């Protein structure tokens, strides 16, 4: 099985995608249980981060070269992600401070899993177009149980934006920073 995964990129990408979706859907269902929100996020985040084991950091878009540009890109992505809510601030929920740490953990874990590992696996299997579209579709599907259908277009558009950044800049640091800031606010 492991040999088949290592020699067949498409199969590996499919297994990684299925695993990530299973983790995210399980987390979404578990979060509906009173008192289980934080444990579900922590365990789910750890389960997502497991996917990065064995992947070289540069292949995931991680690195410290041109770090100021990466950080600046993260701030720019955060500004875009938060702009609609900022304009309508009176209607936007602010997450309690006690949830800040779990917000950071799940944001980092999701970026590593979707735009890091899954993107890299799909890129190997079918190139950048498949990586962009596939990671966006998986990202949207992962939110299907936690968000009403009307929100999924916005979720998909956010996933597409982050995936395009990952492709165009070969960078995951900015999507991580942007996602963390966005999740800390909402």
């Amino acid at each position, binding site marked *: 099985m492991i040999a088949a995964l290592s020699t067949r990129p498409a199969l590996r990408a499919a297994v990684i995608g299925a695993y990530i979706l299973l983790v995210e859907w399980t987390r979404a269902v578990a979060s509906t249980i009173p008192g289980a*929100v934080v444990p579900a996020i922590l365990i789910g985040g750890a389960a997502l981060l497991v996917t990065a084991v064995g992947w070289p950091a540069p292949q995931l878009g991680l690195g410290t070269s041109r770090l100021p540009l990466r950080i600046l890109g993260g701030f720019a992505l955060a500004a875009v992600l938060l702009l609609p*809510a900022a304009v309508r601030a*009176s209607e936007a929920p602010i997450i309690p401070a006690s949830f800040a740490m779990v917000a950071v953990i799940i944001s980092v874990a999701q970026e590593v899993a979707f735009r890091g590992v899954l993107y890299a696996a799909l890129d190997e299997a079918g190139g950048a177009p498949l990586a962009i579209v596939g990671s966006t579709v998986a990202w949207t599907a992962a939110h299907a149980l936690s968000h009403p259908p*009307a929100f999924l277009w916005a*979720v998909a558009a956010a996933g597409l934006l982050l995936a*395009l950044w990952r492709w165009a*800049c070969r960078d995951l640091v900015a999507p991580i920073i942007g996602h963390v800031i966005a999740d800390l606010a909402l």
Partner: protein
Amino acid sequence: MKRPLLIAAAAGAYLVAAWMVAPGFYDGFGPTQPYNWVCPPPIAGANSGVSASSGHLVINVIDGTSDANTAFTADGQMSVSFLPGAFQAAGKTHVTVDITPVSPCPNSPDLHFATNVYQVTADAPLIQVPPTTTQCQPACVAMLYSAISPAPSFVYLAASPNGPWKNIGGTENQLLVIRADTNQLGYFVAGYPANAVNKNSPASSQLLPIAVAVLIVGVLIAGIPLAILRRRAAGNVDEESDEEDDPEVTPRT
């Protein structure tokens, strides 16, 4: 098409998509639906346009013992759970429970209400049990509250919409939901004492536009020197060797 243009187009598509589901993209932990106020507080602005919902439940009674069940409003903002045998239902075949948002909105000089007031009625009284450590004995209420108003500290119960309001406690083991056990039905609301200092100030919602403004200004201000440095570096270093050494980060055309 140039890659920066693709990113800009995706950003535009996101802004349109997020704008259509006000107040925007949620990937955090807040509820994805705005709270349906009967009387929106000033901080909430105009109402969502959706009326607060009522709820109705018929609980079966077998051999005088009512089943366990949960009554909830259609919008999920208020629910009441009942343990088996929660009602004094001898001789009945079922018990009917209704939850109704109260309008006009009651007020109290001693309390700040953080939710709608809901009237919960049943055609049988709850059993009277002494306080125990058993959860939800014989019934418990769970009230969703809005994230834009200060979080409630307690659930209050009254026999009349005009009070007096009795504090029946409150625990929060789910985000934006406060729970309390009760052995009486009546009018329920979540809130906090009028003289309390709440840690979740509504002013926090004003931080978001400020934070986004700071991000935008920061990106613009920091981007100028970085762009200049980038342009100078591009003039000094052969671009091909630069790509081989460090093929990351900068969007390429």
